[in-house]
């Protein structure tokens, strides 16, 4: 009897101690536990460069304060390295050649349909709407950039494929890193702090490319993103409440693993469908629901202490002052979460337990080989030139405005033979 009592006493004691520990730990996380130190962005070892830019007998052009970068670009031949020295350059530079940009401070970098790009080591501050904005690109690397003070997205990957976003620091922006209507994007090892919202995977309806899927958010530091939202009216990010860490808006197959998400006052991770920001029927070709999300091991604490808007209303409804780590609202199917009990969640009833899985096998979403700029051989190219350009004046075997092709062939026969 005594032994039974003492075992019982020990058990009760243990339970009490556990309870006290639990209480204390909550307190600790709420107040003072500092997040792990952010990564060192410019050490030799962090990351590594996939695109080798040195070597060979490249021509180097130097541009110094007062000179024109634009002129240097205009004169550049394949392989030329343009070194822009510190200075104030009031130019907008458009590069219609293959290029890479490194070590740059100034207004935003923006590109349409650039493939195989590297945007590295840039410092972009208060640049307006976008910090780094590749659009319609395939196979790109955005790494080691520091971006702040942007009214929309600091790093804005729009309608792209096969992009890695690594080891960047984004702070004091409306949106830190925004993956919009893109596929195969790896967002890894970034440090996002004091933005209104840190990292997004979202669908914006009304754009020509309609889906967003196969996105990995891995090992990012998503800390204290509580900046006021100073976004432009009408933009999707302008409608989002401040204090949100990771946001998945209608995107599919987004995997979140090994992220540290702390101190975001609205909610740590928010998952929502398009009804949150927009009218769902606006774009009938867009699927408005976030499907097949995978939430694996993440370190989350101290989120949701001061919710706003819908999340605040929800807090009142569920009669809890405790903030949420993960919140899912609206429709969506096929999603899963690992160890859900380690997070404070709401709306994840439809989420199953994830089967054992990890993204560590995926080192990069970039392509093994550069995306080919051209799709056609010489003969087909010639055909396209003939039909696309020449055929307005030269028919094959009758005279239109110019002589017929068969005649031109006769005249040029000897040149062809040579």
């Amino acid at each position, binding site marked *: 009897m005594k032994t039974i009592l003492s075992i019982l006493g020990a058990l009760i004691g243990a339970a009490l101690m556990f309870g006290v520990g639990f209480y204390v730990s909550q307190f600790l996380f709420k107040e003072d536990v500092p997040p792990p130190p952010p990564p060192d962005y410019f050490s030799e070892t962090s990351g590594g460069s996939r695109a080798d830019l040195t070597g060979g007998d490249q021509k180097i052009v130097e541009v110094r304060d007062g000179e024109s970068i634009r002129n240097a670009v205009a004169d550049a031949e394949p392989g030329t390295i343009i070194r822009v020295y510190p200075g104030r350059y009031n130019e*907008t530079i*458009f590069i*219609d050649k293959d290029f890479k940009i490194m070590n740059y401070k100034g*207004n*935003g970098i*923006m*590109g*349409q*349909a*650039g*493939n195989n790009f590297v945007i590295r080591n840039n410092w972009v501050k208060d640049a*307006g*709407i*976008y910090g780094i*904005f590749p*659009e*319609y*690109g*395939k196979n790109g690397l955005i790494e080691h950039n520091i971006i702040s003070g942007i009214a929309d997205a600091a790093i804005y990957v729009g*309608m792209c*494929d096969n992009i890695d976003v690594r080891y960047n620091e984004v702070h004091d922006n409306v949106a830190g890193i925004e993956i919009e209507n893109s596929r195969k994007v790896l967002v890894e090892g970034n440090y996002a702090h004091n933005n209104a919202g840190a990292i997004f995977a979202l669908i914006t309806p*009304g*754009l*020509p*490319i309609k889906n967003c899927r196969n996105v990995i958010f891995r090992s990012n530091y998503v800390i204290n993103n509580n900046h006021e939202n100073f976004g*432009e*009216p*009408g*933009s*999707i990010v*302008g409608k989002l409440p401040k204090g949100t860490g990771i946001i998945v808006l209608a995107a599919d197959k987004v995997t979140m693993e090994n992220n540290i998400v702390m101190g975001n006052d609205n909610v740590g991770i928010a998952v929502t469908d398009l009804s949150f920001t*927009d*009218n769902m*029927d*606006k774009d*009938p070709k867009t699927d408005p629901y976030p499907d097949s999300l995978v939430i694996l091991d993440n370190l989350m604490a101290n989120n949701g202490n001061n919710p706003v808007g819908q999340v605040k209303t929800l807090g009142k409804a569920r009669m809890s002052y405790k903030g949420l780590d993960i919140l899912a609202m609206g429709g969506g199917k096929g999603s899963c979460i690992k160890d859900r009990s380690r997070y404070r969640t709401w709306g994840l009833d439809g989420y199953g337990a994830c089967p054992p899985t990890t993204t560590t096998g995926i080192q990069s979403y970039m392509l093994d080989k550069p*995306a*080919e*700029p*051209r*799709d*056609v051989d010489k003969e*087909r*190219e010639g*055909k*396209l*030139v*003939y*039909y*696309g*350009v020449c*055929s*307005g*004046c030269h*028919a094959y075997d*009758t005279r*239109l405005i110019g002589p017929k092709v068969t005649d031109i062939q006769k005249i040029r026969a000897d040149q062809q033979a040579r």
Partner: protein
Amino acid sequence: MNQRFRIIIQPLDRIFTKHVRYLIVLLPLVVFVSLGVIYQSSNSKEPDRPSSDKASGSASFSTQLRDRCPPGFELTDSNTCECRHMYQQYKNLQGAGVGGLQAGLPEARDGFSPQQIDLGRLLFFDPVLSADSSTSCASCHKPEKGFSDGRGRSMGMHEKPLQRGAPSLWNVAFKKSFFWDGRASTLEEQMQEALFNGDEMGNTKDSLLAALNNDQAYQLLFNEAYPENHGGQITLEEVYTALTAFQTSLISLNSRYDQYAHGNHNALSEREIKGLNVFRSSVARCAECHTPPLFTNRQIAVIGAPAADGAPFDEGAQATFGDSSLRGGFKVPTLRNIAKTAPYMHSGAFTTLEGAIRFYNKGRGHAVPEGENLDLHWLIHNPDLKDKEVKQLVDFLKTLTDQRFKPQVPEQLPSGLPLVHKHKRSS
């Protein structure tokens, strides 16, 4: 000899001089009466499409349709025309055909036969398609005006302004929705509204078919274009197909801008390149919606452009999709051949390119009528462009002109009706 001859000749001579006046009167009478009888009899029986070997009595119209594809198209072994253009050498992201200088285009609607395209060309210019033979497709889509009509709001057969302007037909093969508010999803669907709307061409399906089936020249031409239906009745589907075939042959992808895009950096002047750079800058952000190479992203955008003078506010795509966030939304038009298609916007509110650009420069929502709460597109802001930059933009937009593949206007129409699209209408 002479004597005998005179005996024969004299009576003839007498008869001729005596009765020639009767002949002059009678002969045409006989001709007209017999023509009337022929017409009547041909009307009374069910009209059959004659095969070309009994072509007697057809109008003087040449019944041969072209067996060659229009420029920009390659003839395949199965007698279809496939669109060929320089952008086919580039990759096409997600089939959307957007983004940057060297990006692929979306699939063009093609694969019609040369004969169908040529028949469509004749139908396009022929006012026989309208109720009162006053109006052809080309009345509102004039080749010399970039296949638009130079009016803010188009004018149908009753000379009453319609709700909106006629959009250009250049590169319509790449479009996936039609009308300013996107309410039709195929050209076939779109043209039925124009043909059978009382305010536009005012025809009915029955009378359109009757007019074509009663026209021998058209019967022969339809036989040629649709050999599988040789000798049968002309159908509406055949008409729609031919008109679609012609309209999708209007390709404009050879402007000086295109030469620049394909790598000839001397194709544009320094001023024009500056304009291009303003166009695609993150300040002006024109290229975000007017995305190259088509210079449209083929989406709907609410930009808050003003209505035409005196016209009520136009709800636009809200009606099509039943979505209040699309109130006042219209399709993003292509900017190709834009210099040829003034005035601009759905209402024709701006007569010049500069005016249209300055609209965007005057600030977000400045032209939205009071009481309207529009969900304006997020890229509409105040770019605060300088005068110089606005002018550079105009210079650049003019480089998008290319009408090299402009089709030939028929000299003569199968119906025998005169060409009407150059007629001035009172406005």
